[in-house]
């Protein structure tokens, strides 16, 4: 890797506003450096290895001082994130499906200790080691809590290389606003494809004084004028632990009220609606075009935040249409949230491909006719 990569990033540095061509994975790496991230801890796995490769190639420890470390395992990496986040640093890790499973214990601890950090899952087909081709079957794991306990991950689903870059910043912003881990849930299509991207502006890494101000809870060394900060998810007294849980739930409610993001395309005059996220939403966009060429009025709702889920918007659109098709690269996961939002008022069906097979726009259209129009 690469001379060519160096050339491309050199280009990106010349003018901040310059448009360049790169993979989604590369965009994540560049966006992290530009956001002023303090530490990346990862372990390579297809289809996301270009993230750590790009970071190693860019060598940001020589420029911004950002630490890039290939850990001995995914488990080690997520616990390094815990350590970094405990000090109020911008810490992140990335992996793909099997690697994310290994990180789940650490993610539950991060949520339990209310530590902000950024996770990226470039999903592949599963279960088990599965395939290296794209999948979206980690929706449940990410949105419903793959680790133990009542916790939530702020989950962002990019549908383009541009959004891969943009959601890095948003992820950190939301994580630090609510002291909660955030996860970019993407897949091998968006990770591997190249598109035009305008990288975000360079931001300087925060100074220690700035971190102390932003994160008064951070374990950066105790000063004489305060009690020690303790970062932990352990609480031996169940009454206090329940209080903590109540506090978490109230925080989650605030996030659900304030941070829902989605895109509604061609929904205003639609008779039917497709709901899809990430790369599936791109495929569905083409299906919408094909359907409209045939005179069938189809729209698309694309959740950008998978949690908090745009339940209210979907519920409102459901009043105006005859049926909804949920399209995912899995056996039917997000459909449960769509059905909850619609609450039985109109038919909600599922079209999915699994195990690394990518649906085609024509295949989705056939599935739509078969399951919704009948």
């Amino acid at each position, binding site marked *: 890797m690469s*001379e060519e990569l160096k*050339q491309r990033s050199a280009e990106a540095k010349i003018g901040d506003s310059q448009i360049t061509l790169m993979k989604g994975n590369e965009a994540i790496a560049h966006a992290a450096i530009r956001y002023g991230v303090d530490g990346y801890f990862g372990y390579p796995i297809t289809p996301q290895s270009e993230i750590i490769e790009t970071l190693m190639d860019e060598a940001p420890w020589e420029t911004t001082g950002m630490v890039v470390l290939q850990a001995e395992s995914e488990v080690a990496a997520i616990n390094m994130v815990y350590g970094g986040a405990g000090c109020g640093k911008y810490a992140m890790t990335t992996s793909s499906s099997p690697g994310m499973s290994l990180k789940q214990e650490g993610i539950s601890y991060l949520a339990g200790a209310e530590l902000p950090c950024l996770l990226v899952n470039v999903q592949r087909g599963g279960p088990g080691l599965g395939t290296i081709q794209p999948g979206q079957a980690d929706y449940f794991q990410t949105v419903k809590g793959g680790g133990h306990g009542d916790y939530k991950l702020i989950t962002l689903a990019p549908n383009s290389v541009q959004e891969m870059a943009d959601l890095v910043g948003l992820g950190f912003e939301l994580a630090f606003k609510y002291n909660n881990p955030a996860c970019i849930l993407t897949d091998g299509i968006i990770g*591997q494809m190249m*598109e*035009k991207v305008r990288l975000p502006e360079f931001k300087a890494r925060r100074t220690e004084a700035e971190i102390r101000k932003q994160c008064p809870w951070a374990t950066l060394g105790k000063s004489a004028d305060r009690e020690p900060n303790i970062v932990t998810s352990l609480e031996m007294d169940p009454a206090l632990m329940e209080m903590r849980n109540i506090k978490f739930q109230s925080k989650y409610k605030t996030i659900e009220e304030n941070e829902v993001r989605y895109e509604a395309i061609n929904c205003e005059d639609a008779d039917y609606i497709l709901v899809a996220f990430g790369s599936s939403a*791109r495929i569905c966009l083409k299906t919408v075009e094909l359907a409209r060429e045939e005179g069938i009025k189809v729209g698309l709702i694309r959740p950008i935040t998978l949690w908090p889920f745009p339940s209210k918007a979907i519920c409102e659109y459901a009043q105006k249409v005859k049926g909804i098709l949920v399209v995912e690269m899995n056996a039917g996961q997000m459909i449960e949230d769509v059905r909850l939002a619609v609450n039985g008022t109109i038919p909600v069906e599922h079209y999915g491909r699994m195990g690394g097979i990518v649906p085609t*726009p024509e295949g989705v259209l056939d599935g739509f006719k078969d399951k919704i129009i009948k």
Partner: protein
Amino acid sequence: MLQEIVISGFGGQGVLSMGKILAYSGIMEDKEVSWFPAYGPEQRGGTANVTVIVSDKPISSPVVNKYDVAIVLNQPSLDKFEPKLKPGGILIYDSYGINKKPERKDINVYCINAMEESTKMQNTKVFNMIILGGLLKISPIVQIENVMEGLKKSLPERHHKLLPMNEKAILLGMEKIELEQRAV
């Protein structure tokens, strides 16, 4: 303008980089582009293909099932993508290693002996540029000046001395591509 193109051949033939140069050239013309490789466990010697879309408007799906142009550089690729061409679409193949020719009558078929020509040039590495030249002759998706700009951008500087040879290969491809069948 929307061109949905698939380039397919053996790993190592320069399929992915040819797609990348095409995508870069599109950017030089301020067009929307997407480049999506079928990434698999096998590389050199295995089959590789890439979908490149160049458009005036934002691109909906980077993954498509029907193509305007299919460039097929071995028999398995021809077998796989000939049925996926839109009626009236363009099929470009290199006759080297092809024993079963295209059969559809509703597509435009072009042949280019790029393998042979690159051997004559004593540089088989420009094989993919000869093919690209052929494509640009029959479907001027991008201007050749922009291809050269795109090449400059996608090649590391230490390889810039190879630019004239690549340009020569592109021009040769433009000259050598032959219409074999017009769509009926």
